[in-house]
């Protein structure tokens, strides 16, 4: 692991509390994320993973505490205010179902954020969008298709290309491999880790796919009991006996098979 002393955190969450209709979703949640790695947030359903991500993305207001993005306190901004747009362009989010604009071609989907934020010429925006689509592994003959006309795996690739259109430093992925067949899922894992290494992205994902976790994750953040219970490498997470649920997550019937394989062969798979 990289020496944390020399790096500045890209995301810092301090004493976060979220209160929803008579219920604390988070209470005194602290989380520090350093750049240039893949972090996976796991936890039982309803433990507030998506809420946490939505709060960092300023899609949802927090009740108490602070959130910093690159040292800037974003939690003090008004969510409704348009000036927060510029901050938001530094983070990207890929939604679970892709959330592609169904009335635009794939190319226009990727051009869209460029058109909103930049004043490049049309040709330039098109070139950049084509580049992003190709980097995401989309075949050229599909550029002028509509989202409905392509497979879910392809839709995810386009969604990733659109997310990367403005070169965000932090990319959030919500269930990137859910609903994909094993081949597409492992291709997509490879694509994510490839892009992460080349563009030095910080990737934060929510996933239940143990294959994805073992193959591309650098760190695990385990949410439970309204706060972060565990934050370390995947290997340590799989050996942590202090938190029974987390241990079960990696050493249950499904988990143990994968754990053995990945620990045995390491990075060679």
């Amino acid at each position, binding site marked *: 692991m990289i020496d944390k002393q020399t790096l500045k955190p890209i995301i810092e969450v301090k004493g976060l509390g979220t209160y929803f209709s008579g219920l604390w979703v988070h209470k005194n949640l602290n989380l520090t994320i350093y750049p240039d790695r893949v972090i996976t947030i796991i936890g039982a359903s309803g433990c507030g993973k998506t809420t946490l991500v939505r709060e960092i993305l300023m899609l949802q207001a927090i009740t108490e505490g602070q959130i910093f993005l690159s040292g800037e306190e974003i939690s003090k901004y008004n969510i409704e205010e348009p000036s927060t747009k510029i901050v938001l362009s530094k983070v990207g989010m890929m939604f679970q179902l892709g959330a592609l604009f169904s009335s635009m071609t794939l*190319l226009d989907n990727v051009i869209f954020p460029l058109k909103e*934020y930049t004043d*490049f010429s049309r040709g330039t925006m098109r070139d*950049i969008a*084509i*580049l992003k689509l190709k980097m995401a592994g989309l075949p050229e003959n599909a550029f002028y298709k509509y989202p409905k006309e392509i497979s879910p795996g392809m839709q995810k690739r386009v969604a990733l290309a659109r997310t990367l259109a403005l*070169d965000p430093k932090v990319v959030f992925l919500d269930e990137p491999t859910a609903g994909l067949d094993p081949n597409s899922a492992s291709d997509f894992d490879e694509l994510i880790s490839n892009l992460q290494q080349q563009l030095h992205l910080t990737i934060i994902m929510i996933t239940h796919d143990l294959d994805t976790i073992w193959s591309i994750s650098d760190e695990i953040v385990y949410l439970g009991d309204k706060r972060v219970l565990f934050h370390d490498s995947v290997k340590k997470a799989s050996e942590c006996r202090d938190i029974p649920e987390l241990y079960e997550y990696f050493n249950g019937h499904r988990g143990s098979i994968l754990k053995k394989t990945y620990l045995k062969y390491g990075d060679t798979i």
Partner: protein
Amino acid sequence: MYKESSNQDLIKEIPAQIVYDSTTATLYLAGSWFWSTINEKKLIKLVKVIDFANNIIIDGDSIEGVDTTGIYFIERLITWLAQKNITISQLRLSADEQKLIQRIRDNRVKEKSSIVPLKSDSFLAAIGRGVFDIFGSLVDLLDFFGQFWVNVFKFLRSPFDADWDEVVRTIRDAGIKGVWVASLLSFLIGATLAYQMAPQFITYGANVYIVNFLGIALLKEVSPLLTAVIVAGRTGASITAEIGTRKVQEEIDALQTMGISTMQRIILPKVIGVMVAVPLITAIADMASMLGGAIVSNSALSVNYSLFIARMQTYVAVSNYTVGIIKSFAFALIVALVGCFCGLKVKGNANSIGEQTTKSVVAGIILIVFCDAIFAVIFNVLGL
């Protein structure tokens, strides 16, 4: 790639700069090469006026940070220089930047022709396609109409199997909620019509004939038509949007896999509901419009209420009213069927629902007016 600046200063970044030193023939790239800091027009203008030597050095040592957009521009600059036959003897960029440039080159489109958008039709082709589309829609509509009647007979064989809850819901939505708008507008139209015609009747001293006029115009023509148009706008549109949304969410397909007929389950209840609601609304709208007419007759034409009612009983035939109600059944059928047909035509995206809803309302109103004209001829021949 993101050098020191990456963790600091989200907003404050130095714009991308290009400086050419002609004494050493070196092109210096400086500043941050991010999408947010690159001014494309300014850079192009700057590069175009530089008088390059034949052999230059590109020095990117003082670049503060780049993203893929920045790399795209640097690559474009290098390609542009190559096209101008300017050789680059030295390219001082970091290893990461060089790798990214290579990646951009790897991902360059080889055959431009492969990503040309689908050609839009020429004028003649568009006309041809339009005609074929209309023809296709008519065939579809006929098909739909046929299926509908087959299902009507199935329904008549076992009427208790139908989804009566849905019928009641449709009657509530189309009828009870729609009756207020329809009666208010009919009342106003009745009053306005009487008011506009008043001077004509007064001129000839034929004040009492206003009753004959209103009786025929409102009961036979205006109220049924107005009500049908309002229902087409309210209920027709909502039927299309509802069925369209269900289509997009694959609910229709789900029903079919369960072996349940869409016609029986979704369309028939709506048609029955609308056909019950519209004649009822029309009857109420008839009353509202006559009330509006009577009030104006009383105040502007001094035809008092008892005289109005007496004249109506003697001179306005019941057939005027029945013709209006019969027409309203036909209008209801048109609105419901067109609404359902357009709803089923929705194809999987959000635009399509809006498109089909518009079509449903427009086609509904057009067909209602056509149908009204045909009825006028038929009833005339029948002497009603």
